[in-house]
């Protein structure tokens, strides 16, 4: 009996770190954002560390992702609205070549950097534990949006949900307004 109770306790702890995230719409909230240094399509290096003090919004994307493409124009509009308030928007393209990304994203004329996560390691680092456990970790974050606060902590994490797809980024704007009001 004692043995069974111990086993149940251990399992509860393990599951709390995995299964419960699956039911949470906003995973990793309050956790430090994994650091990264990536090259942009224009060849410049960007790291999360160098953006400390700004609110950083990250969108994980690929050129073929229909939801990412539907959001893209709204992402640039959002950046235009918030860039003078200390908000930096970044697109992180996952596992695609510089040439493809550069060519494909021309049509969006992004005014913010598009970074290349060519081996998918950054995408993997941002995949919440326990969410979509049967998928490769670098697939989980595609089409998701995050907001990282000035101290480098994740304050907003919106994984794709096509049944209530927020193409106009209403929730992200609301969160940015909330974080900016706390200055």
């Amino acid at each position, binding site marked *: 009996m004692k*043995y*069974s109770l111990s*086993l*149940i306790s251990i*399992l*509860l702890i393990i*599951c*709390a770190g*995995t*299964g*419960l995230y*699956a*039911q949470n719409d906003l995973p990793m909230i309050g956790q430090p954002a994994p650091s990264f240094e990536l090259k942009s399509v224009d060849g410049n290096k960007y790291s999360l560390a160098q953006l400390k003090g700004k609110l950083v919004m990250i969108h994980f994307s*690929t*050129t*073929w*992702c*229909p*939801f*990412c*493409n*539907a959001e893209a124009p709204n992402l640039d509009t959002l950046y235009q609205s918030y860039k003078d308030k200390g908000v930096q928007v970044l697109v992180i393209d996952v*596992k695609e070549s510089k040439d493809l990304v550069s060519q*494909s994203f021309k049509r969006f004329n992004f005014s913010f950097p598009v970074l290349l996560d060519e081996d998918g390691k950054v995408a993997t680092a941002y995949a919440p534990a326990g969410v*979509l*456990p*049967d*998928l*490769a970790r670098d*697939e*989980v974050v*595609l*089409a998701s949006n995050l907001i990282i606060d000035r101290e480098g902590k994740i304050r907003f994490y919106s*994984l*794709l*949900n*096509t*049944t*209530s*797809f*927020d*193409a*106009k980024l209403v929730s992200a704007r609301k969160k940015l307004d909330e974080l900016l009001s706390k200055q």
Partner: protein
Amino acid sequence: MIFRSIILVACFTGMNPFQVKEKDIVSVSVNETILTPEEKSVAIIRVKVKADYHIQANNVTNESLIPISLETTPNRFFLLNKPIFPPYKFFRLEGTEERLNVFDSIFIIQLPVKAMSTTKEGQYLIKARIRYQACNAKTCLFPRTINFELPVIVKKHKLAD
């Protein structure tokens, strides 16, 4: 008792204790195609898309999307024409004016096949692959390729009906 505890805890926390690691979102099954030399026929490829997923159709609304494609390895025994896809469904992107052309559930691709006049009687395998890009309600997946073989039997004379 212990096993029951594991099941109970797993269910309570939303984990599926019997979850099978996902492999392919799409599976393919094919029947043998039987024909005689110079006869035209159609190979039937039955494609099954995993529940709750859709894949981009062969005609996409935007050139950046990855349409389903069926390719075959050329061989000297058969003439293979362009595959014929069924009508697609529409998938509306919530909150936008956009809609996607998609396939889901089960559908059939037809591949016109003709045996060359020089093709001898016997059993043949035509190598084929389907490339697709799938999404479900929670994520979009990297494009995947599924390789398979189409069995073709060439008979000397037409089969009696």
